[in-house]
């Protein structure tokens, strides 16, 4: 009797309004508390052991990498080929190659001083397109900064990409942010922000909202392996599992966080190794294999929505380009290493070989598409460059839903100043509207 009375006391002292708590029938409690078979701790009731044994992480092989194609683009197990229609596969290919072309042009434009900054997606196109293709276009995407292909898949136009990079008057973001900080309400892509990992717990909250709204949608959250070290990543993974949120966490493990290689980022089995620790369904995939990415994301989405739980996908890939236009990666890695991935394990080549094997593509189409693609990119580029920047008074808009008086006051003061000192400000580059 004594243990039960103590238990009752403990429970009662915890509740603020001293409600009676039903702790089950007396015999059930007696049985549980007197059982020697399992530990009874609220935190874990696994098993007993009398062996003093530490778990050795180095003895575990690591979660295997799921793939559909080999490095040359040949399907290994035909049952895993998602058998996507020709039209869709060609769209995937065109999307990846157009992204690649746009990257080349915009990287160069930064070098020429036309835009201030740029980040390429070289080598990771497969992670973008494979995953985006498996989502519903209305699923909400929270990205990090290297997921432009997902926007491209959904229909963000070359003009829209370039308007944002140029920060001109047609930029949806009204010229407020650095290049590649894209956002689209229409395409359900939350505007990118520079702080790393902050999007992760936000994605969980959004998924919770969607769960409550019962709208049949899930949330997709992209992040890099470097970002997974941030506290927000831990917060997100834990919250998503405890609160049963329909969110897919997609980690682009590309081997580098600027100059920091993954072996300096973590000691355990990558990011996938953490999933089970959070109580989450987990898989590791070959990120350079569009079909593997597609299959995993497809399945993850199904599980997330049918079972109302988060899923973790770690897509292994390689960052072929520099971190950004402010980085020269030859300072910390060999040109040979980069060349290996570019020539021997590239998502675009692998998909092209698949298409060739199916008879869906050939040299003539490649040449025609290359030229068409380049032309589209160049003309969009020229259009974006010519446009004026937004009216400088946009500085003061959207701080709040309504403009408060102290901001209006500052706007007025600056208006007077600019009028007086007009010749010292680059007004001709900015729209008057």
């Amino acid at each position, binding site marked *: 009797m004594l243990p039960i009375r103590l238990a009752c006391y403990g429970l009662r002292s915890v509740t603020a309004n001293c409600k009676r708590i039903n702790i089950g029938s007396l015999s059930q409690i007696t049985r549980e508390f007197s059982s020697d078979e399992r530990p009874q701790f609220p935190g874990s009731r696994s098993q007993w052991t009398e062996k003093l044994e530490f778990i050795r992480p180095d003895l575990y092989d690591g979660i295997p990498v799921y793939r559909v194609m080999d490095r040359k683009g040949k399907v290994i197990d035909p049952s895993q080929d998602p058998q996507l229609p020709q039209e869709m596969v060609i769209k995937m290919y065109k999307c990846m190659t157009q992204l690649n072309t746009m990257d080349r042009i915009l990287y160069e434009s930064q070098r020429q001083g036309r835009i201030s900054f740029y980040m390429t997606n070289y080598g990771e196109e497969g992670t973008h397109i494979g995953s985006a293709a498996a989502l519903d276009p209305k699923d909400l995407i929270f990205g990090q900064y290297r997921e432009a292909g997902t926007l491209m898949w959904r229909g963000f136009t070359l003009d829209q990409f370039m308007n944002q990079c140029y920060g001109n008057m047609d*930029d949806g973001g009204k*010229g*407020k942010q650095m290049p590649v900080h894209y956002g689209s309400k229409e395409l359900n892509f*939350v505007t990118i922000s520079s702080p790393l990992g*902050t999007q992760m717990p936000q994605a969980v909250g959004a998924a919770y*909202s969607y769960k409550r*709204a019962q709208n049949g949608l899930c949330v997709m959250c992209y992040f890099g392996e470097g970002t997974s070290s941030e506290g927000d990543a831990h917060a*997100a993974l834990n919250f998503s599992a405890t609160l049963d949120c329909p969110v897919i966490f997609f980690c682009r493990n590309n081997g580098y966080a600027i100059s920091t290689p993954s072996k300096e980022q973590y000691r355990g089995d990558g990011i996938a190794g953490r999933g089970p620790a959070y109580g989450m369904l987990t898989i590791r995939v070959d990120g350079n294999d569009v079909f593997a990415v597609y299959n995993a994301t497809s399945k993850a989405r199904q599980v997330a929505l049918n079972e109302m739980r988060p899923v973790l996908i770690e897509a292994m890939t390689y960052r072929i380009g520099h971190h950004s236009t402010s980085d020269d990666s030859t300072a910390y890695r060999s040109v040979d290493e980069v060349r290996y991935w570019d020539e021997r394990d590239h998502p675009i080549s692998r998909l092209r070989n698949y298409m060739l094997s199916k008879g869906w593509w050939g040299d003539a189409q490649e040449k025609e598409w290359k030229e068409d693609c380049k032309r589209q990119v160049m003309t969009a580029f020229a259009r974006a460059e010519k446009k004026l920047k937004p009216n400088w008074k946009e500085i003061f808009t959207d701080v709040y839903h309504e403009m*408060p008086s102290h901001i209006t006051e500052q706007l007025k003061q600056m208006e007077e100043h600019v009028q007086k000192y007009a010749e010292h400000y680059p007004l001709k580059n900015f729209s008057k509207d």
Partner: protein
Amino acid sequence: MNLFQAINNSLDLALSSDPTAIIFGEDVAFGGVFRCTVGLQEKHGKSRVFNTPLCEQGIAGFGIGAATAGATAIAEIQFADYILPAFDQICNEAAKYRYRSGGLYDCGSLTIRAPCSAVGHGALYHSQSPEAFFAHCPGLKVVVPRGPIKAKGLLLSCIRDKNPCLFFEPKILYRSAVEQVPVKEYTMPLSKADILVEGDDITLVGWGTQVHVLREVCQLAKDQLNVSCELIDLVTILPWDKETIAQVDLPVCLLTVLPFIYLFISLSKYLKSVKKTGRLLIAHEAPLTSGFGAEIAASIQHDCFLNLEAPIERVTGFDTPFPHMFEPFYMPDKWRCFEAVKKLVNY
């Protein structure tokens, strides 16, 4: 109702009137460590009132995401002292969501509540008043109620406001402040300071618990110095009501070109506080350097320079962490405030 009951009532009304509203944070399910959420999970269900894991940055981030995706997200941080891990999410993300997306996205339906300020024995980590940190972050609203009636209306206003709001509740008032709170639903305007006592000789400005201290100072000043104090509760720290503290819409050119007309106007009863009294005392528990009193002082000396009869005085916590045993010496109590009033009046 006392303060926590008023807040409980406000939250209940918010949940009853808005099916997308959710309340979450540490220990909110059983009622919260200060009883602000008592009965809410029972009434509105586990999917709407729920515990999160122990992680302030997660709570804030989760709230931002929930708000962005359409929910009215009401987050609780257990003590304002622990809001700092959420600083990145609040200031780098929530505050800037609308601005950086060109208005495409926002988390306006997010409200974060936290108990703040001294409680008698809270020491370093259960007594902080962090309003100044957040006042420095454009895009946020920061509100501090002085009692149950204001709290109920202000909290509902924050929850319905289309901007992310921080609602700091002075914890010592949870039980000690008792008022006849209207049972019906009502809101109170944000960014509007309250003139609680009208006076002619000196303006006293404070918020939260300090308003009650300053009320006593008004009485002391009247009894012992025959000084008439004007007491103002700032209520909203950001965006703050500068006009009530000092009228600002009088054009500067008018002041300089027509001084005699200005003199006439300054004697008129219409004029706002400091232009009327010529003296300003600001009091807050938070430390002196870069406390919110500094912002008020800088702005008022700018706008009311010619009206001031004495320097602007701030009576605040010292530039030290908040001590345990020495709380009676640390606080900007009525004697320190009274002494400051004396100094200003005799300047």
